[in-house]
């Protein structure tokens, strides 16, 4: 498969996987370093000259870089191979710790280093087997792409996530303390989990205003509504404009007040003083991030609000303050519903 096609297919699948709802048990956000890359910083890496991986390992590492870029859900660093880079990846049996399969060190925003042990390296516990080395990967092998993605997670600043003991929570993160082999759950996880993405989003912000917030977060939102007129003649049009943002007072300062586009914001109305709201329209997005707009021609005076129902992402729903648009010459005082 050509790499560009691999990238597109991987991106669609990985984004869907990375933002999914974490299992019950409230896996915490993956810890993340205080030292950042620049947002969307391109950080190329080369193969260290005395540790060039064999082709099967190079492909796994490159796929992991694609996976990191596709599943980050944020403006975290973009990793890609480029000869002559300051950062490097080495395939070597000399690592900074005795028991490590892999190791990563970072000097953001300048460079990083990643070490991966060779196939066949002898540890106290046995011989290292990388799954990609084999035509038919044996049980007990380590998936090189998963391990490389885990190392790229460290490059991004992610630490280890001591996820809930519940096996159901295992896929909430790829940054586990213990590296797993085939066929244990998560052995071939090729995208960041929702709690990894959540951590990256708190540090680097959402990839775009339309990017879904990872489920490991639960961010309050603020929805406001304005109208082009507060009083009209029956049959006239009034344009409602809503703005949706992450609330100002969320725990993560970098996300506070960030606009949210592409959500389903409903325009609702009720009779004046009534208690039952009915949806009149789903508001359309505009070219301004976080802004939604709908034009209606009410025949009577109503109270209006915008509503973000509980979305399927790490956001809390919100309703805007109510506003009234007075209509003269129509049903008086209001139309019977």
């Amino acid at each position, binding site marked *: 498969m050509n790499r560009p096609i691999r990238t597109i297919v991987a991106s669609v699948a990985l984004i869907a996987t990375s933002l999914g709802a974490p299992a019950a048990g409230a896996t915490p956000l993956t*810890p993340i370093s205080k030292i950042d890359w620049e947002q969307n910083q391109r950080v190329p890496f080369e193969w260290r000259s005395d540790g060039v991986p064999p082709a099967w390992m190079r492909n796994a590492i490159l796929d992991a870089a694609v996976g990191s870029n596709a599943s980050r859900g944020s403006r975290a660093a973009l990793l890609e191979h480029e000869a002559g880079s300051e950062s490097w990846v080495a395939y070597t049996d000399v690592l900074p710790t*005795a*028991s490590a399969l892999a190791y990563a060190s970072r000097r953001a925003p300048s460079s990083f280093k990643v070490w991966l042990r060779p196939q*066949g390296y002898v540890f106290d516990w046995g011989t290292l087997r990388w799954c990609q080395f084999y035509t038919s990967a044996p049980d007990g092998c380590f998936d090189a792409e998963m391990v490389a993605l885990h*190392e790229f997670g*460290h490059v991004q600043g992610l*630490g*280890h996530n001591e996820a809930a003991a519940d096996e159901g929570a295992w896929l909430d993160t790829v940054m586990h*303390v*213990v590296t797993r082999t085939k066929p244990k759950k998560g052995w071939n996880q090729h995208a960041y989990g929702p709690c990894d993405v959540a951590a990256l989003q708190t540090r680097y912000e959402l990839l775009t205003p339309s990017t879904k917030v990872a489920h490991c977060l639960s961010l309050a939102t603020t929805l406001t509504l304005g109208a082009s007129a507060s009083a009209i003649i029956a049959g006239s049009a009034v344009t409602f404009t809503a703005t949706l943002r992450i609330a100002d007072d969320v725990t993560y300062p970098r996300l506070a007040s960030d606009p949210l586009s592409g959500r389903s914001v409903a325009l609702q109305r009720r009779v004046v003083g009534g208690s039952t709201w009915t949806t009149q329209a789903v508001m359309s997005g505009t070219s301004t991030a976080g802004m939604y707009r709908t034009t209606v021609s009410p025949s009577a005076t109503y109270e209006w609000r915008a509503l973000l129902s509980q979305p399927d992402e790490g956001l809390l729903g919100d309703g805007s303050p109510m506003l009234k648009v007075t209509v003269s010459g129509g049903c008086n005082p209001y139309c019977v519903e």
Partner: protein
Amino acid sequence: MKALIALLVGGVLLGSCGSAGPPVTGSPSPTFSPAPSTAPPAPTPPPSPSPTDVEPSLPPPPAAALSAANAAPLNGTLGSVCYLEACGDSPWLPAAGLPLLELADGSDELTVTIADGFAFVSWTVDYADAQDTAGENVINHATGGSEDGPAMTEASFSPPPSGDWVLSVHLVYADGDGDGAYYWHVTVP
């Protein structure tokens, strides 16, 4: 003599296959066959350099010791670790090669203590049968502290039940400095 030479050559070829990888076409090599029983024994791993040998700029992570009422503190073997801006990743470590702590009494409380000058904010204890070298059935035993809680330098917990275990204590270091998983081989009467 010819048979001996053949065996030696075969052993060398199998050894080189382990590290050389497949042909340049990039396709993975066929599944390995186990080495014949007459092949030379697998080499023992060379002693690894310290982190500062490989990366002089990396400060070493802290050590952690496990002790009991009738057992002197014993430094654990460090598995996966993140310390400051560097991380190492390991699987579950097997009993072989781990420091051995033999409890005299199954009710003795265990205490983990981090090296002087360091602190942690949370800890998690897991254990697995010492025969379970791959950590297939790890049991979560105890946990304490929180990432937002006060820093501490030691924590105590009850031992695993009677048996022969690999015990891991995962510490989250204070000040957001990272985390480390420390391993011991523990026998409980």
